[in-house]
């Protein structure tokens, strides 16, 4: 039974939705989780590695990012409003695992003022939209931040052996 994590998670969600734990609810949750898993099967993939400590650090990093991005966007709104500027920055990808890229794109949406606009799988480049860019230095800062974020994600769930971490600049990568 390779799907037990999914069943376990669905049961936990069920119990949380009820808000309290009784044997009936737990058993009911298990039944519903089993039904959902059997009726709507997802493809079974090799599990991503689970490294608790880097994962925890990634979580803390993302929460900090969420706070900063909420603040940054608010400041940009109030200070510049209609005159605010943005930019699209190319960021070289540090991994070629599709699931890890998905996670990176999701995490990037929490970073201050930016999200992933386009993913170039062949060239291994992410195109990141960032609000509040004003100069080339800001663009470099965004690139550096995205790089740190990617390193965190890869160290938390990256698959060994498919992480060619080289320092190519986006110009060379294209």
């Amino acid at each position, binding site marked *: 039974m390779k799907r037990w994590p999914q069943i376990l998670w669905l049961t936990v*969600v069920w119990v*949380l*939705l009820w*808000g*309290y734990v009784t044997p009936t609810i737990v058993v009911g949750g298990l039944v519903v989780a089993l039904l959902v898993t059997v009726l709507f099967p997802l493809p079974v993939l090799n599990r991503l590695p689970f490294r608790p400590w880097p994962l925890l650090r990634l979580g803390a990093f993302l929460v900090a990012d*969420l*706070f900063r*991005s*909420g*603040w*940054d*966007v*608010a400041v*940009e*709104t*109030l200070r510049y*409003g*209609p*005159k*605010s*500027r*943005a*930019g*699209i*920055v*190319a960021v070289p990808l540090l991994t070629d695992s599709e699931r890890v890229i998905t996670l990176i*794109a*999701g*995490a*990037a*949406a*929490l970073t*201050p*003022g*930016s*999200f*992933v*606009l*386009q993913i*170039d799988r062949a060239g291994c*480049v992410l*195109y990141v*939209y960032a*609000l509040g*860019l*004003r*100069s*080339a230095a*800001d*663009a470099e800062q965004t690139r550096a931040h995205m790089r740190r974020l990617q390193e965190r994600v890869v160290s938390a769930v990256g698959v060994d052996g498919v992480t060619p971490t080289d320092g190519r600049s*986006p110009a060379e990568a*294209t």
Partner: protein
Amino acid sequence: MIRDIVSSVFLLGGALFCLLGAIGLVRLPDLPARLQAATKPQTLGLLFVLIGTAVRLEFENAATLVLVILFQAVTAPVISQIVARSAYRTGAVDTDLLVIDELTARVAEQDGK
């Protein structure tokens, strides 16, 4: 008493960030910028409101709120990315507002080949 103060600080802070998000929707110039306003301060505001609510609730009920913020944090990025991507492809992004645009250069280069 302390609970009330903590909870009201979080609720008001959350409301403030939601308001800032709404102001951003009006004041920011183009679609991707507005998407930022709709996702970033809004998510933070929701997080604060939920924390403020959780402080007032018994533990069992507060646990459900964890789900709310979790699903918000998981779904908001996906939606913003899809909308932004379609916006870029249909030309709804005002390129005059971009300080640096490495994607358009790349697209032009590919079309040229």
